[in-house]
């Protein structure tokens, strides 16, 4: 008996420990919660986090100055605690900011201000002038920095519809400048193209967006070697071939929305989105992973586990790490919204869903943003309870 126990102990010690994401304590980003203060982490592609030059930047929108405005806070990557929020917007109202690391501690933010897309460079020490990205009615910018430079994609109003355009960007010190904007898809604007998500790849850029031109919402992707000429759009979400509604000849698609891309800067690009193909329980989180720079995404994969199957999932974000793709979202499986994550390590198998302290429990925790940088997984989200709202942040190591 003793020999058996010793053998089992030896076997246990000999087995490799299974690594997992281990989160540090969460940190408050947007200050103390206050009544009637409403912070929002919303943007095209959920691009609210960026890092570079030893700094992490987080951008969000809230109404602390009496109207919805865009704010940023910076954090030394090696030290806990964020700087006081600094206001980036200057107009009557501003929404949906995204941010990109420029290196040397500088960041470029783009957001909608008074119905037009603007941009601004900032660092811990300085803040540049507000610059116009598009003088026309426009919204929902997304940014990426690749080997061929900086690029932006956003929705420009064309008649009744938003139509995606892209432009190269340059930054001179603290002054950003936009080059000529071109339509991503040159076919006529017949309906909305919404909420694009842009990432840099080894060969240029990969892009995904919501497209309503088929009479229902499809998710489409395209690639570009230079950000100027884009490939023919390819479908990302699979549409079930059968289903009661479809058999009745009603509607054309199952409902998909808010696609988010992340990449490793090389050939891996991951996409996550909300998908209502199983419409009885609302949206589920689906994913596609490309190993050829976004040219093809393979079969759709369900990222979440069965424990959230009876509840709708919302606001998906994604990061590509050396330890696999990580998806984050929120769902109310425990009655109120909490942050949940799942990881895909090799193959097509997704882990059981997991969460972290401070991102579940009392109140609601939603709208996650994710970033992989410097050997850490960076996660931000919005916490709301009776005291008010607060943007929170935590980082995780793979150990």
């Amino acid at each position, binding site marked *: 008996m003793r020999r058996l126990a010793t053998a089992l102990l030896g076997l246990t010690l000999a087995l490799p420990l299974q690594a997992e994401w281990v989160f540090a304590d969460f940190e408050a980003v947007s200050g103390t919660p206050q009544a009637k203060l409403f912070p929002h982490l919303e943007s095209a592609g959920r691009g609210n986090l960026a890092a570079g030059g030893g700094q992490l930047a987080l951008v969000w929108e809230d109404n602390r100055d009496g109207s919805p405005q865009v704010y940023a806070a910076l954090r030394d990557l090696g030290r806990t605690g964020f700087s006081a929020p600094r206001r980036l917007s200057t107009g009557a109202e501003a929404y949906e900011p995204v941010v990109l690391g420029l290196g040397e501690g500088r960041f470029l933010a783009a957001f909608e201000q008074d119905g037009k897309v603007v941009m601004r460079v900032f660092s811990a020490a300085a803040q540049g002038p507000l610059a116009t990205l598009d003088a026309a009615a426009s919204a929902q910018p997304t940014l990426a920095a690749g080997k061929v430079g900086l690029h932006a994609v956003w929705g420009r109003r064309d008649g009744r519809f938003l139509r995606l355009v892209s432009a190269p960007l340059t930054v001179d010190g603290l002054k950003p400048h936009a080059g000529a904007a071109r339509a991503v898809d040159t076919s006529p604007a017949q309906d909305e193209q919404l909420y694009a998500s842009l990432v840099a790849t080894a060969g240029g850029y990969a892009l995904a967006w919501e497209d309503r031109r088929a009479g229902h*919402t499809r998710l489409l992707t395209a690639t570009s070697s230079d950000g100027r000429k884009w490939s023919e759009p390819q479908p990302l979400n699979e549409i079930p071939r059968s289903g009661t509604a479809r058999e009745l000849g009603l509607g054309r698609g199952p409902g998909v929305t808010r696609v988010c891309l992340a990449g490793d800067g090389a050939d891996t690009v991951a996409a996550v989105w909300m998908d209502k193909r199983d419409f009885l329980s609302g949206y589920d989180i689906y994913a596609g992973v490309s190993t050829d720079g976004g040219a093809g995404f393979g079969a759709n994969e369900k990222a979440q586990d069965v424990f959230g199957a009876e509840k709708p999932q919302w606001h998906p974000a994604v990061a590509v790490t050396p330890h696999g793709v990580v998806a984050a979202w929120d769902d109310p499986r425990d009655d109120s919204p909490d942050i949940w994550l799942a990881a895909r390590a090799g193959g097509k198998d997704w882990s059981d869903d997991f969460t972290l302290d401070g991102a579940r429990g009392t109140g609601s925790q939603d709208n996650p943003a994710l970033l992989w940088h410097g050997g850490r997984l960076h996660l931000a989200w919005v916490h709301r309870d009776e005291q008010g709202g607060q943007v929170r942040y935590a980082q995780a190591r793979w150990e």
Partner: protein
Amino acid sequence: MKTTTRLFALAALLLTTLVHADPPSGYAFLPYDQGLRQAQASGKKIFLYFGRYGCAWCDKTNKESFSDAGLKQLYSANYVLVYVDAESGTRLSLPSGERITEMELGARLNVFATPVFLYLEPDGTTILKVPGFKTVQDFRDFDRYVSGGHYRKMKLLEFLAENPS
């Protein structure tokens, strides 16, 4: 040839329009915050229709239920009519002053499918939430329950059991 092409294009356009599942035609649906203001001014309750672009069951509800002239008259008289596109980024103001998108309103109200129909007090408090395709008779029953104030005393199913159509 040109005429044939034009007719074909027009037919295709009409077909596309029909399956969009926008709010049913002929009804005075308003955006959420505009409807809330109107309800508070008039004291009328709100009928809130959560639809989705390309939604099959919204399409069926529009074609088979909201096409009924009597239902149109009943709901136009009794409610401020509000339509929300559950995937839209259009912004609205909540009674608290918070500005959110139409999709975010759906997330806050846990609108897990479309269509979802909500009956609200003039201040935006939810009275009743019913998901999925509903018949003309269903809508008439919901109206009896809400307009008659029975929701203050009993659940919908209890009301319908005691007061069948």
